[in-house]
């Protein structure tokens, strides 16, 4: 692993078994997350962002999932490859070294267990705390994420709390064991805009304080601009472009990234039609032999149909998977 990286995903493929057959949900993802950064993953629904990050924690049903490739992770016990780990070894990492925040906190919390207890339970299981210590620590976490009054909230059940509060509980739970990597899977999508801003602020503050690395999944480019250091853009189960926020927003090299940015409404766009990307992302029932974006791409040529574009490294932080990235940049 490279110095300073906490997570390196190499050629990760995830195949999911469904009633309709195999879905090749992730088809060769390469992704690096540096220590202490917030790394955004952006893409349309069904592009494999959730599936690939869930694979980092191996949260998919083992009987219905196949993994290939490498997920190298710098755990508290040193470097490990997550893909070959068994259930027991995974349990050591889950919750303690890697934690996750889910999109819909209403259903992601056990409906009939007290909110505080759901955190205390994790502290007891992962850090071996006693009942009273676990409760004390859980109350501290509640205060930290702004669930007040903590004592009263500790005793409440999820159905007695609002969506924003529940997301705070999720965050408190995820950070309670001081993980090295936090995966936030669209944590603000289900919330209304004002609460969204509060939660983003909270995640940002806590991240700055604890120096935890964060993978932040979203389909909202505004959120990316606000809190991320670097970004990966995913399309049809692959990362098609990676770079720092500045590189992605100002020097996008992939036609999809460009189209995505253009479809985001900006100030002063009055009186114009919003730009959209025509067509829909492909279904992932088979592996691609050509560029999956080609049918929707303005730059597509015959070459795109025939060969999967290799990832081209442009500089230390920026890379792109497109046959025509030079033309996209306007260099040709």
């Amino acid at each position, binding site marked *: 692993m490279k110095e300073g990286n906490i997570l390196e995903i190499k050629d990760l493929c995830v195949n999911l078994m469904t009633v309709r057959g195999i879905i090749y949900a992730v088809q060769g993802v390469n992704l690096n997350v540096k220590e202490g950064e917030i790394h955004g993953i952006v893409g349309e629904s069904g592009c494999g962002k959730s599936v690939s990050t869930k694979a980092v924690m191996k949260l998919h049903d083992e009987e219905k999932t196949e993994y290939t490739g490498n997920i190298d992770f710098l755990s508290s016990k040193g470097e490990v490859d997550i893909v070959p780990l068994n259930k027991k070894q*995974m349990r050591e990492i889950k919750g303690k070294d890697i934690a996750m925040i889910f999109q819909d906190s209403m259903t992601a919390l056990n409906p009939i267990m007290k909110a505080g207890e759901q955190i205390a*339970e994790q502290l007891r299981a992962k850090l071996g705390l006693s009942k009273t210590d676990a409760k004390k620590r859980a109350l501290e976490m509640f205060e930290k994420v702004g669930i007040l009054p903590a004592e009263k909230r500790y005793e409440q059940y999820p159905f007695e709390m609002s969506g924003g509060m529940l997301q705070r509980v999720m965050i408190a739970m995820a950070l309670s064991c001081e993980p090295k990597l936090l995966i936030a899977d669209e944590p603000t999508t289900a919330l209304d805009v004002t609460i969204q801003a509060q939660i983003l602020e909270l995640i940002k503050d806590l991240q700055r304080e604890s120096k935890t690395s964060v993978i932040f999944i979203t389909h909202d480019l505004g959120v990316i601009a606000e809190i991320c250091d670097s970004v990966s853009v995913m399309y049809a189960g692959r990362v098609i472009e990676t770079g720092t926020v500045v590189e992605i927003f100002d020097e996008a090299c992939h036609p999809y990234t460009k189209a995505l940015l253009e479809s985001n409404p900006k100030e002063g766009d009055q009186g114009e039609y919003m730009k959209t990307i025509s067509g829909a992302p492909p279904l992932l029932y088979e592996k691609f032999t050509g560029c999956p974006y080609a049918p929707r791409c303005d730059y597509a040529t015959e070459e795109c149909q025939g060969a999967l574009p290799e990832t081209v490294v442009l500089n230390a932080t920026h890379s792109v998977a497109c046959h025509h990235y030079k033309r996209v940049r306007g260099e040709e």
Partner: protein
Amino acid sequence: MKEYVKYIGKRIIAMIPILLIVSFAIFFLLRLSSTDEAAVIIGERQATDELKARVTQEYGLDKPELIRYFDWLKGVVVGDFGKDYDSGQDIGELISSRIPVTLGLVLISSALGLTFAIILGVISALHRNKPLDTGISLVMLFFCSVPSFLVSVLVLLILTKFIPGYSFIGTYNNFGEFLQRISVPAVIMALNQLALLGRVTRSSMVSQLQAPYIVTANAKGLTDKDITYKHAFHNAVIPVLTVAGMSFANAIGGTVLIEQIFSLPGIGGLLVSAVQGGNYPVVQILVMFMLIVYLIMSLIVDVLYVVVDPRVKLQ
């Protein structure tokens, strides 16, 4: 604790209107039929006009129905359940000796059925689509679709063929014999309840194991044991309780048949012959008794519900 007592008290008070309405409805439903009650009372005796007049007078058959209902109700409240049309015996005495069998059957079979249903349902769900699950599911499908009186008939057939000396039917003289008599029918009734509740447990457990909060629990790095029992199981039990109330009702109805088949001295045989013979006072009292048993059991289920599910409040 205090609020539970208050809740149970409230529920018991709420039973009174139900009992009144149902008793009223039953009383008048039974009087709808064309059965001549005096003839039922006279039975095989010579039906002279004099006897008929005496019977009509003694049982108050000539009074308006509404007055007869209130007379009956008054009697029931003070513990006078009326007289059996067949034997002229006091109904209270008639049924009190028969209650242990019926109550024993219902309680033992419900307790056994619920316990094993939950155990087997969970095992089945955890081995979903594996041979063990298929086996358990098939057995449950069998006992769920085949009514318990049929199973009893076949079991009786087999038992009389292979263990001719074993006395498992008829009356009993002491507690040991009582247990011996009701063991076979209780197990058969339990199997029926087990099948119904076990299927519910399985499907409820399967869907809970796929719920999003299980993914969260998994991401927290909890052990499989904790995920299964602390999280999924607790949630899965709730719908099982709902169906348990229904299953108890089936058991109460089912004991009527089972007692008949195993010739047990319970209230089932009494009820059937009373329905057949137009012996209405007995029908009324027995139905009310079974209704009370059912209402109490469903009250227990509801209290359990509150204990298990924090979203349900006592009200």
